[in-house]
């Protein structure tokens, strides 16, 4: 059990460091197992140094920087053992446009590296423009949801009409 966890830690850490630098366009980060002799009781710490900034714990970063770092961790776990389906519910909400663009680049990258189908719920116009297809959910009748296929161009109109 302990052997497998340490091995998983190394794999995830490798992916995480690389994904952090990709998503931040620079800088570096790594994971650490701490607080206990027994890795099954240990804590997972995240040490980060965004581009040009000093090394510190993730808790000292801005809201958007923390969200991007946590996203890198989730994708690192995913890449260690890719699932057939990946669903992301409003993961891009706290990100600025440059970070959203890098996040979408990473999604493109992962569709090439894996057979995984990705579904992203978003309110962000940049993310919408990077999807291969869009579905809209509406409540034409109050309280009753309907799913509609959408042209990529009409997403901008939907956002405007929201």
């Amino acid at each position, binding site marked *: 059990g302990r052997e497998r966890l340490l091995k998983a830690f190394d794999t995830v850490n490798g992916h995480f460091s690389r994904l952090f630098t990709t998503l931040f366009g620079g800088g570096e980060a790594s994971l650490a197992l701490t*607080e206990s002799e027994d890795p099954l009781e240990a804590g997972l710490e995240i040490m980060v140094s965004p581009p040009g900034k000093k090394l510190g714990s993730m808790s000292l970063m801005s809201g958007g920087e923390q969200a991007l770092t946590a996203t890198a961790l989730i994708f690192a776990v995913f890449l260690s053992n890719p699932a057939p389906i990946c669903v992301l*519910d409003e993961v891009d909400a706290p990100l600025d446009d440059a970070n959203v663009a890098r996040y979408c680049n990473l999604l493109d990258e992962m569709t090439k590296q894996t057979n995984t189908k990705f579904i992203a719920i978003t309110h962000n116009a940049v993310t919408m423009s990077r999807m291969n297809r869009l579905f809209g959910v509406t409540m034409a009748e109050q309280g*009753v*949801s309907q799913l509609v296929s959408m042209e990529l161009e009409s997403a901008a109109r939907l956002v405007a009409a929201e």
Partner: protein
Amino acid sequence: LAFNQIKLVGFKSFVDPTDFLIEPGLTGIVGPNGCGKSNLLEAIRWVMGANSAKAMRAKGMDDVIFSGTKARPGRNQAHVTLTVDNSARVAPPMFNDDDVLEITRIITSGQGSKYKVNNKTVRAKDIQLLFADASTGANSPALVRQGQISELIAAKPSNRRRILEEAA
């Protein structure tokens, strides 16, 4: 395994039968606040055997059944069917004779959930094993709920470490 389609009937705000084709690459889901986007994704975790009502934003599992609106009465049953491709024949032996598997979960008010694969009744445990073998399942770290990123940031280091166990 490849996930091809999901059908919802009476599940939360999707009272009328809804088919959602799951295609390769990146699919975006958009719409106003409260229109049902997160409900659609919860149906995926639910049919895979999610057993925590709390993770479904429900007090009890019956809360996933369409509860009615001012204009429509509530239902007493909800079901979701997931269609997966098994041409790679990677499913557990009891399911491995078919190219296509239709996995259905039905909940009836006050009577709990039943599961079927290609119309044959199975146990919840069989469903969970089927998806676990395919590196997915209701608790897959690849299924990121709304607000889960914030939870990960705020989590105690020992709770955060659990995410590694999903990769192990």
